[in-house]
């Protein structure tokens, strides 16, 4: 059985992806701060008859990444499917946006994905099969008030992914981006009911998205059947960008 690593797999969209991939892969649930939540996701996969284990991975730290991959390689051989989902927000409008907040968001969301992808690609090249998925955001294409850093990091993932798709196509490695719209997670929990209603008004599908809406397409992009889809950005947003 092939092995999938989901960074930020303990909560929100990452959790839903990990649970879904648990049906067809050994799943490594990457967590940085939420160990307990990571353990729960692992337990849930195992209870459903899957194979899973937690691994601590701080994508801003190259040593942490190296340790995580070494652990995974010992246990499962290597990472065949990489879902770059770990991400943070540090919102503020430009005149108030501190350079540290800019750097932290870029370092985690964009540079972190570069680091994990680079570490993972060697095994994929060797086995001549690989699937990489980046969890971006529609904000990366639309921009958003107070999210210049987050939007820039999510837009950056698109260039990263498309380049990897071109570089690695001959080795049967695909790289794609999912751009979620408004999804019910901790990251959007601050929205008031009124704000939610305003968002829903702009959607073709009249509801806020669920993490499972993202997990379903990610899961398909990790199959053999999706081998002709690469370098794409797929928005899963209830039609808000259509």
């Amino acid at each position, binding site marked *: 059985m092939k092995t999938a690593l989901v960074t930020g797999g303990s909560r929100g969209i990452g959790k839903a992806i990990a649970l879904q991939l648990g049906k067809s892969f050994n799943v490594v649930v990457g967590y940085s701060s939420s160990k307990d939540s990571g353990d729960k996701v692992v337990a849930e996969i195992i209870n459903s008859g899957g194979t899973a284990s937690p691994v601590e991975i701080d994508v801003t730290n190259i040593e942490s990444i190296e340790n995580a991959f070494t652990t995974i390689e010992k246990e499962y051989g290597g990472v065949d499917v990489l879902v770059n989902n770990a991400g943070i927000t540090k919102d503020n409008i430009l005149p108030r946006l501190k350079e540290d907040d800019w750097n932290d968001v870029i370092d985690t969301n964009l540079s972190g994905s570069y680091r994990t992808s680079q570490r993972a690609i*060697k095994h994929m*090249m*060797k086995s001549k099969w690989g699937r990489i998925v980046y969890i971006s955001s529609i904000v990366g294409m639309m921009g958003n008030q107070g999210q210049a850093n987050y939007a820039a990091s999510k837009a950056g993932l698109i260039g990263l992914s498309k380049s990897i798709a071109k*570089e*690695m196509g*001959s*080795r049967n490695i695909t790289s794609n981006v999912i751009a979620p719209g408004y999804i019910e997670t901790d990251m959007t929990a601050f929205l008031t009911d009124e704000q939610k209603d305003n968002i829903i008004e702009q959607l073709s599908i009249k509801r806020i998205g669920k993490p499972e809406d993202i997990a379903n397409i990610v899961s398909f992009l990790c199959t053999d059947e999706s081998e002709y889809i690469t370098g794409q950005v797929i928005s899963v947003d209830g039609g808000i960008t259509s």
Partner: protein
Amino acid sequence: MEVNEVFEKVKNLFVEELGLDADKVTMDAKLEEDLEIDSLGIVEVVMAFEDEFGIEIDDEELTDVATVGQAVNLLHSKL
């Protein structure tokens, strides 16, 4: 390590990593033309060299490497 030993190891890596015919891997063989290794293939071989010999190879050092023999000599000089 003697040049011959380096060559044998290199030949094994080409066979294992890229599935090449061992007879084709001679000192004179040109990587791109004779062995039909693409640019990504060169990267794969270099990564395998680095692992096998425990060395690091800079991109600049590769600019003059077009044949198996030149790769062997580069590795030999670094060991």
